[in-house]
């Protein structure tokens, strides 16, 4: 039987990993991810699961360690945040290029400097082109569900790619939420042991991570791009299966009251639930507004996004990271470029918001949307803005 418990989301993430029959984990603790590392090591130390927990000296090693284990056919897990993710950066594209399934949680945190341990998305955005599948969770339930789903997706023979599951640091990781844990037997049925495509073993020598000369490098990159794009099929299939077994649905682009909305707000991660309340409030005031939530960042869900926004007059994209000297936040740049060739497309605005743990309240979204609505009505073309910045 599934059970509902009140639990801190970071702890729940580790508990979810504990249900996935992992073989090994290597996690270097970093705020606000530390509770995941600590609790998972407890689960292993207490003998609740039969797995190796490798205590490493850095994130560069944790990601290298899990990748090596994955190459031997193990089911592996790691987690990180902010500077830790940046320290992994060198290894991240190698994991995807070697087509090694790895599941990694990222407790989203601002990057230095100034030094800041609080929540935004500036850690994951610079990893955009690392070739990983990138998910964003809105709440604790999604963290648990998507952790379990991620192993199945990453290890599928049609995918064989690492997955980074983003959960907002503190706003999610340190919040106690009511979470429904699926039954272990059901999880076992959903997620059977890994059947690796190939493994490193002395009895059957193969080479992984070889040199790619100029004659094959472009072809190997093309094949990796195709593999990442192709993974969407499996992602959709696994989410479908999850919904049938556990009743909760997952889509690359989720919408809230967006069908008939003239104005759409786009969010990622935990801000989405606050934004829903703002949408409700504005609907009461008679404003035709809806919400689009981007769950899948890579591979980017072009079709789903275009379908969700094509009828709107104005789309306000929120970004929780800055692309210094660029044309806006990274999500905005992606979406504007995705819509360039569309005949039916909304005016697109960009608000950079919630940086480094700056609270984003319902009233902020209301103010942001109302201001944008006024400018949008006049058809004003706008650059990106730092919402609520002083001065």
């Amino acid at each position, binding site marked *: 039987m599934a059970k509902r418990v009140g639990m801190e989301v970071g702890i729940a993430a580790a508990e979810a990993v504990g249900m996935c029959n992992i073989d090994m984990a290597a996690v270097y603790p970093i705020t606000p991810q530390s509770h995941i590392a600590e609790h998972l090591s407890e689960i292993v130390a207490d003998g609740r699961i039969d797995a190796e927990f490798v205590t490493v000296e850095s994130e560069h090693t944790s990601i290298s360690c899990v990748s090596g284990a994955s190459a031997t056919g193990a089911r592996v897990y790691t987690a990180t945040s902010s500077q830790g993710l940046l320290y992994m950066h060198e290894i991240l594209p190698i994991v995807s*290029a*070697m*087509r*090694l399934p790895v599941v990694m949680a990222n407790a989203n945190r601002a990057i230095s400097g100034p030094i800041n341990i609080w929540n935004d998305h500036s850690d994951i955005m610079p990893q955009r082109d690392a070739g990983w599948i990138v998910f964003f969770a809105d709440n604790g339930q999604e963290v648990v569900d998507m952790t379990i789903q991620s192993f199945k997706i990453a290890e599928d023979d049609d995918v*064989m790619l690492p997955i980074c599951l983003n959960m907002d640091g503190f706003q999610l990781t340190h919040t106690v939420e009511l979470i429904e844990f699926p039954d272990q037997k059901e999880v076992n049925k959903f997620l059977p042991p890994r059947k690796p*495509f*190939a493994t490193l073993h002395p009895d059957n*020598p*193969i*080479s*992984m*991570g*070889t040199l*790619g*000369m100029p*004659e*094959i490098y*472009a*072809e*190997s990159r*093309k*094949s990796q791009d*195709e*593999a990442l794009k192709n993974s969407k099929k499996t992602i959709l299939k696994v989410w479908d299966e999850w919904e049938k077994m556990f009743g909760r649905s997952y889509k690359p682009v989720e919408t809230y009251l967006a069908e008939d909305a003239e104005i759409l707000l786009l969010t990622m991660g935990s801000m989405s639930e606050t934004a829903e309340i703002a949408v409700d409030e504005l609907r009461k005031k008679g404003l035709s507004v809806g919400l689009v939530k981007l769950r899948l960042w890579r591979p980017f869900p072009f079709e789903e996004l275009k379908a969700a926004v094509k009828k709107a007059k104005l789309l306000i994209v929120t970004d929780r990271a800055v692309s210094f000297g660029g044309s806006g936040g990274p999500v905005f740049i992606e979406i504007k470029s995705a819509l360039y060739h569309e005949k039916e497309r909304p005016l697109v605005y960009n608000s950079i918001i919630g940086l480094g743990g700056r609270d984003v309240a319902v009233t902020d979204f209301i103010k942001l949307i109302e201001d944008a609505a006024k400018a949008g009505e006049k058809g004003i073309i706008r650059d990106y803005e730092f919402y609520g910045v002083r001065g």
Partner: protein
Amino acid sequence: MKKKKWPETWQEINPGCMVFEPASARSYLTGSWKAQHPVWDDSKCIKCGICYIFCPEGCVSQDEKGFFRADLDYCKGCGICAHECWPGAIKMVEEG
């Protein structure tokens, strides 16, 4: 059919560029890179084997008389053997 040196198309790339044939690097003759090759003067050679030890390619071996030769299919012409040979028995000679 002639064996391909590398996959022609991206569709032929193995996932993760995995190589399933053990020791296939042997078929890639890195000796084609060299601009010079080592020539031994056996009259100066004392058969100490320092060239064999220092060769980074592992392509130097001893013949039946105990003298040393490089496998030119893999020798990159780095000249380390000539540099290390203290009796001065190895000379690097330009290719061509």
